[in-house]
């Protein structure tokens, strides 16, 4: 075990996350885990890690680190973020791996587009399993991840690898398509019958906006009010990541990774699992529209989305010499494609 990175500045909200904590819902333990499953996995893939290895989720502003090991290989995934290295003139863009050596100080400059970003280190971090997961749950009582809390200045992250062998760095073949204007697909229920017909129609046709009162627990939306058909208190039942509950305020809340496991407000709809990553990266101020699909469709869409993610990982290729202008052109091209075929399945 070696010291890999020392936190010089922690950023706004940087936590260790993995694919989440399963098997403890019955104990009231939230799932936690990466908000953006795809970004989290792509960061791991770029440094050759197990796709579910713990890495760092960064929200708001990025952290600054000093390299403690003789060398490390890292990758940043999130919008069009960059890694700024104090000793180098050019910033390193996201979606690729880069090797840094002892004493180098770097900062993750996060994309203003994306609510969360991921930083992975080759070989992963040495973080003890807590209730079967390395994800951090920062709310009281605080457990998992790095001492059950977000990173602070002075923390030292350890890992198994004292050095990262020199090799050709790799990059995503094409950047992710952010699809910020794509409707979020939902399956109605489990409690859509607690709402008036008009409210359900309203929910499916209106445009909502993500408010700043949004975090890993949930995204609060503002927009048209949704009328309950009767009482809005119900005897509690289970919540999943993506449950959209409507409390007495009549405004929907999309519950996310750190949400409590049970709740007593009716849930008008549930975000399909394929679209959870694109909810996770939407930041406050962005618009959200919902589109209804069936459960069978949701499952088909998820399988397609997973296949697409696996293809992106398969297509990871050696970094070519096209840094700078050519690369920008390449990315530009793909972004244009993204707009055209963003919602075609």
């Amino acid at each position, binding site marked *: 075990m070696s010291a890999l990175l020392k936190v010089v500045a922690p950023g706004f909200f940087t936590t260790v996350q993995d694919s989440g904590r399963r098997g403890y819902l*019955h104990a009231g333990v939230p799932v936690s885990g990466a908000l953006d499953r795809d970004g989290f996995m792509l960061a791991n893939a770029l440094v050759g890690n197990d796709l579910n290895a713990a890495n760092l989720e960064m929200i708001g502003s990025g952290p600054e680190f000093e390299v403690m090991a003789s060398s490390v290989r890292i990758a940043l995934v999130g919008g069009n973020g960059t890694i700024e290295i104090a000793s180098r003139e050019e910033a390193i863009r996201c979606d690729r791996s880069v090797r840094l050596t002892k004493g180098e100080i770097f900062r993750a400059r996060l994309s203003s587009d994306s609510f969360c970003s991921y930083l992975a280190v080759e070989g992963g971090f040495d973080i003890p399993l807590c209730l079967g997961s390395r994800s951090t749950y920062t709310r*009281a009582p605080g457990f998992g991840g790095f001492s059950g809390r977000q990173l602070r200045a002075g923390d030292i992250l350890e890992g198994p690898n004292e050095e990262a062998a020199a090799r050709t760095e790799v990059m995503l073949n094409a950047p992710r398509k952010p699809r910020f204007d794509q409707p979020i697909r939902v399956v109605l229920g*489990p*409690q859509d019958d607690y709402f008036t017909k008009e409210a359900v129609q309203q929910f499916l046709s209106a445009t909502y906006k993500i408010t700043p009162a949004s975090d890993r627990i949930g995204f609060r939306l503002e927009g048209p009010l949704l009328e309950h058909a009767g009482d809005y208190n119900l005897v509690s*039942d289970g919540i999943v990541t993506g449950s959209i509950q409507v409390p007495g305020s009549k405004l929907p809340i999309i519950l996310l990774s750190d949400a409590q496991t049970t*709740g007593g407000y009716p849930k008008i709809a549930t975000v399909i699992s394929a679209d959870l990553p694109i909810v996770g990266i939407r930041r406050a101020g962005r618009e959200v529209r919902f589109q209804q699909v069936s459960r*069978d469709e949701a499952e088909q869409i*998820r399988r397609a989305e997973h296949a697409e993610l696996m293809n992106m990982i398969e297509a990871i290729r050696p970094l070519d010499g096209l840094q700078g202008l050519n690369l920008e052109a390449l990315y530009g091209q793909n972004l244009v494609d993204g707009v055209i075929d963003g919602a075609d399945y």
Partner: protein
Amino acid sequence: MADFRILNAADSALIVEFGSKIDRKISERILALAAAVEKARLPGVTEVLPTFRSLSVNYDPLVTTGRELEHRITGFVSDSGKVSGSRRLWDVPACYDPEFAPDIEAVARAAELTPAEVVTLHSETQYHVYMVGFVAGFPYMGDLPAKLRLPRRADPRTRVPPGSVAIATSMAAVYPYESPGGWHLIGTTPIRLFDPDSERGALLRPGDGVKFRPVSKSEFAKIRKAVEQRNYTPASKEIAV
């Protein structure tokens, strides 16, 4: 017509709903189904979550489908009552001294009882854990004796001390760690209901039983010390279902 419904939480979970109120019979059906589903180890089922009204069956849509699970679960429901999970009755020490029970006198007044009668009624009841939620390790237990049933406090506390033994409506609970809360605090337990460093996580599971055992302030201190030294396991025994 079936007396249960299978609702969807998109492609993440099926919600098998048996009712819409807090009811011991509903709870038993939910727990029986939970045990049956767990025993069957269906591919793709990631976990089950019993609540007051339903059983959530969470699944991985890359491994199975809602349609397949719906079919299997319907079979289990009509066949239920034959499988039972492991359930334990726990002895939970609690100190009801006013120092550890900020609301016991107000509760006694509202219920037209003496504080000693509140303790007797509360500690002589065997509770059933309907579900664990709100925060990690928080057990919703019932049913409270009719005389102790009060609405929640009009003025919720922003900080309820850890271990607080609480009541509201027909429910009893213990706050596992400091959190906000609106229930009446009638005692404190020295034991830990949630320990993220233990494999069990929460001491209590849905279906478990709980009986509170009144302890003196000095016994409370002794148990708390043992708990801090990780040298105390509350007594428990298997419940025959």
